């Protein structure tokens, strides 16, 4: 087990390195530096500023210095938010994004797997078809359509929920963003769980459990669910990646001051360091969470050998 984790961690290092290198050199390809476009500075001052930000050194050396800072969690200064470093901006946005993401993934897993189990237990009935058609809608319609629509109906016409804003994290302000973010994941999880549950319900050990006289409730709770929910674990990695992408739109639409919003604003303002910082952070998170999901899967699935 430990060997497996170590091997996977070592395997993640080149991946991360490639991501960091790619983002760094893309950033250097971009025309213009942090101090262009403002009033002309005397050359000696410009030289001093460039020296202060290491911009006068060869690109490879700059990359080394950037890596060194990065290891300490320093993403460099933001190009456009003059008084902030990228790390400070990320620290500002992280609590909001984290709250949004955690709520959304919890809702997605609870609702999605319940719907999937429900549909599987009533396979090929009207309720099964209804749930699966709803899931198809959830998968097909993108976040940036559901978000304005739900806001229009629940926020504007019915006036039940605030249309936008963070409101210091008030529950009412979080309901719409969390719902919108969770919807596609609910749909995917429901389909996934239904598929695996249907398969498990047909398997030999379930027939054995029924044959020895367990009630249907006991069969489902003790035997089917345990095996049927397993694929959910390996879907957690992609689900989180999906949530991160979704949060870009959701934070933008609902005006939540999270990392995703900083990222989009950074991309629109050409704040290269901010954009790169967020990408590196997200990629690292995704790699780590994928690793965690794989390890969990190995712990939970008796069929997979550890090692």
């Amino acid at each position: 087990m430990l060997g497996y984790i170590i091997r996977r961690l070592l395997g993640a290092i080149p991946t991360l390195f490639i991501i960091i290198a790619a983002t760094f050199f893309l950033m250097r390809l971009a025309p213009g530096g942090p101090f262009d476009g403002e009033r002309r500075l005397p050359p000696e001052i410009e030289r001093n500023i460039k020296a202060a930000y290491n911009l006068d050194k060869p690109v490879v050396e700059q990359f080394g210095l950037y890596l060194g800072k990065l290891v300490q969690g320093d993403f460099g200064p933001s190009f456009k938010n003059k008084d902030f470093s990228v790390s400070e901006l990320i620290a500002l946005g992280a609590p909001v994004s984290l709250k949004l993401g955690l709520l959304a993934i919890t809702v997605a897993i609870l609702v999605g797997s319940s719907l999937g189990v429900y549909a599987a237990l009533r396979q090929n009935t009207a309720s099964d078809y209804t749930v699966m058609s709803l899931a198809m809608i959830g998968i097909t319609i993108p976040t940036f359509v559901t978000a304005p629509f739900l806001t229009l109906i629940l926020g504007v016409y019915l006036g039940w929920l605030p249309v936008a804003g963070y409101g210091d994290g008030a529950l009412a302000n979080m309901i719409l963003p969390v719902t919108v973010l969770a919807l596609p994941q609910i749909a995917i999880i429901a389909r996934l769980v239904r598929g695996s549950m249907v398969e498990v319900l047909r398997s030999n050990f379930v027939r054995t459990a029924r044959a020895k006289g367990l009630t249907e409730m006991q069969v489902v709770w003790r035997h089917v669910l345990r095996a049927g929910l397993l694929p959910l674990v390996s879907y957690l990695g992609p689900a989180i990646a999906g949530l991160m992408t979704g949060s870009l739109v959701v934070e933008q639409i609902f005006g939540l001051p999270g990392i995703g919003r900083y990222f989009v604003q950074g991309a629109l303002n050409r704040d290269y360091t901010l954009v790169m910082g967020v990408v590196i952070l997200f990629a690292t998170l995704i790699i780590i969470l994928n690793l965690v999901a794989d390890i969990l899967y190995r712990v939970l699935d008796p069929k997979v050998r550890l090692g």
Partner: protein
Amino acid sequence: MAIPMSQSGREEAMKAAETVKGRSLWQDARRRLFRNKATVVSMIVLSIIILLALFAPYLSIHRYDTQDYNQVGCYPSSMIDMSKLNPPEGADPDSAAYKAYQQYNDEYPERVQCGLGIIASYEQAKSDFELYCSAGNSATAPPEINCARAPQQDDFTHVLGTDAIGRDLWVRTLYGARVSLSVGVVASFVALMIGVMYGATAGYAGGRVDAFMMRFVDIMYALPFIFFVIILMTVTADIPFFKDPFNRFILVFAAIGAVEWLTMARIVRGQTLSIKRKEYVEAAVAAGVSNAKIIRRHVIPNVIGPVIVFVTLTIPSTMLAESFLSFLGLGVQEPMTSWGVLISDGANEMETKPWLLIFPALMMAVTLFCFNFIGDGLRDALDPKDR
């Protein structure tokens, strides 16, 4: 041992064998496809949308980029009651009919403005048409007057209303369809080309080459690739070459296509690995056919089924990626438009003018549904397991 058959004879035999097998497979698939009602309906709806997009310039007299500041934020014409737009003729200002007219116009000034605008421009166009075309001097008519068709009153209404700077939403949605659909198709084609080449090569080469090539795909796969597309769009935004709308458009194609090829490569590789061990490939190797030719003649034709299914499912996801970028303001630039741009604009004004959001969003949702249903139908039709 040499095979006692001439080169051309062998090729003919191979060709004959291929056509016979291929025809039965495709006939079978087609029959099953057309039995699936959801797929057939989707194909019809999608064809209509594609035709509308293709003939967009001929479907309305409005242009997608003409701004008319006299008709800003117009209601869809179906929401305007034309009979209430003009005061009842000779009516007493104290009468109920006159008061109803006044109230109608006081409540929603956009109705009056747009309604009156319709009449005014229609009258202008009609008198121009009569002046230049009816008197038999159509040859000297100025280019903006189309003598082939007399202007109709309906031409001057906005079927779906107008946006915040007076552009016709119907025409813009159709032009958005052009952009979104072509991004979907072209980017999927880019993904198809790269993915099939890459996957077939990796799968056929096997061994270390395969391991190395697929390791690269795995690394790419670990990333939220849309972020890289966003970086690319950001970084190139200041480069003069990409400021040209057309070049930027191409960049959107290429960037999205470059994201979507990974899954394609995986699918094709898996298929290739299993085909490689088939007897007919062994026979081709024994007959001395070159590797490139085996990939072209045997491997690619046999992986085409799953690939077609995947392409139909890639098109909606590339359309989504483009709309996602455009929604964030990083995709196609004004006055060009796409569904993402329209939905984003509509979302900003949804409180007062919900139709600006509803129609483009509906159009996009319907299109995405169609592609998904067609993809599902094709998968069922081409699945050899339940033939």
